């Protein structure tokens, strides 16, 4: 993780906590990937290899209610009204595409989660920009004969580098890969949670390529349809599909001849088949490539790349 990434996250922490995290960061074993604040509990830092409760002068540094309120106030920029939609979703995306999840007291209206109040826990998840990781997979998801990309689904549990790989694939498709003599293509990205491009005020902060059009903060299903209609993309990149409406939009995209690169939570192909909406897409052979990731040898370990029949692509 770059210092820049950590610094941009620390700006969203109360001063006392950002100071202590900064002190801890220098002597740590591995990169910090999560910073967890829970009311009346010790501050916790999680890295890829390790997790620890932070000590201050020999005793645990306890996060107070005031710390949490202050952190949330910084996150909302003193404008809670402006993040109502995110309050109902349980996370916020901050500058740089880092995600902050939260829990508290749920307010339900008509059976729907309207908001979360009395926040009691915050989880700062630090996004990593892994430039170059897509190089290992690009040839396997590219059809040289027809000069197009296969519809690809990246499968991995949380914190295994799905979004980082997707982002780098988008960048590589957009810029082209001279090493493999692949030309750049027009890519459109629907970034519902601002995680792929890490956009701030709609402008991408992460490298997503020079032929990429970004639709930030837009629901996936609407975004896919809008981009197909208006931007004539050759490839569409979208993160974390799952809902029925997403599936419908993906079907539409696949049928319109646009290549789709997307991700889903799961351990492997077998586990995602148990999700009815995803099963539907697999059954109609919407995806021609499956990339399965794990963190066995570090974040973004490529376990296997499968074809439409579930056979490994050599």
């Amino acid at each position, binding site marked *: 993780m770059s210092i820049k990434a950590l610094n941009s996250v620390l700006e969203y922490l109360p001063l006392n906590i950002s100071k202590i995290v900064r002190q801890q960061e220098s002597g740590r074993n591995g990169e910090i990937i999560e910073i967890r604040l829970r009311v009346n509990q010790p501050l916790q830092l999680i890295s890829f290899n390790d997790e620890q409760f932070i000590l201050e002068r020999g005793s645990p540094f306890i996060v107070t209610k005031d710390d949490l309120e202050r952190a949330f106030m910084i996150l909302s920029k003193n404008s809670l*009204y402006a993040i109502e939609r995110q309050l109902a979703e349980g996370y916020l995306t901050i500058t740089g595409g880092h995600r902050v999840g939260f829990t508290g007291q749920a307010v339900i209206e008509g059976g729907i989660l309207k908001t979360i109040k009395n926040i009691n826990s915050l989880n700062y998840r630090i996004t990593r920009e892994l430039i170059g990781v897509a190089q290992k997979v690009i040839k396997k998801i590219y059809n040289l004969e027809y000069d197009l990309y296969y519809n690809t689904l990246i499968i991995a549990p949380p914190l295994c580098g799905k979004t980082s790989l997707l982002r780098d694939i988008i960048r590589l498709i957009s810029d082209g890969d001279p090493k493999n003599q692949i030309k750049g293509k027009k890519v459109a990205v629907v970034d519902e949670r601002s995680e792929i491009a890490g956009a701030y005020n709609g402008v991408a902060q992460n490298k997503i390529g020079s032929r990429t059009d970004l639709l930030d903060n837009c629901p996936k299903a609407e975004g896919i349809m809008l981009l197909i209609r208006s931007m004539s993309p050759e490839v569409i990149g979208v993160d974390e599909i799952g809902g029925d409406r997403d599936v419908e939009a993906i079907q539409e995209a696949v049928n319109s001849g646009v290549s789709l690169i997307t991700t889903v939570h799961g351990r492997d192909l077998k586990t995602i088949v148990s999700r009815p909406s995803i099963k539907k897409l697999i059954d109609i052979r919407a995806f021609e490539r499956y990339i399965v990731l794990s963190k066995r040898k570090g974040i973004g370990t490529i376990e296997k790349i499968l074809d439409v029949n579930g056979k490994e692509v050599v």
Partner: protein
Amino acid sequence: MVKLFGAFLILISGSSIGWICGSIYLNRVRELKELQLALNILDTEISYGRTLLPEALKTTLDVLSPSLAKIFCDAADELNRSKNHHFFELWEDIIEYNSKKTYLRREVFEILINWGRQIGASTLDNQIKINKLTIKRLEQNEQIATDIAIRRVKPVRYAGILISLMVIILFY
């Protein structure tokens, strides 16, 4: 000739003092009107634009006279600068610092301080209610200030002229 000039000077000074004292009441009414307009603009920014508080505060500056604009401008700047503070912590200090530079009375600042304790800290529905309530309270204050102005502006201005005439008669 000198006497005449002296008498003229006393008359001008006395009238001016009366005029200025009378204007305080009128300026108070004007500032209360400006505040209501500013809060209405802010409410629109919040409810329709979901504009973040610092930017929303800045949108009000055009309708405020310099002394009030400074309060809102300082609040926006401080919010951008001191990310570690709640709005109300900064707002109260800014109000206290700038309150003497306006024509408003203490109770109006109490209304603004109360508004600052809640703004930005709750959902959109609440924000709209808080803004409406604050505007209503400012409206009531404006009504009171207008009544006072109607009763006092003319007498104060006349008093300036009359007192200066009295001084001229006493001296000459």
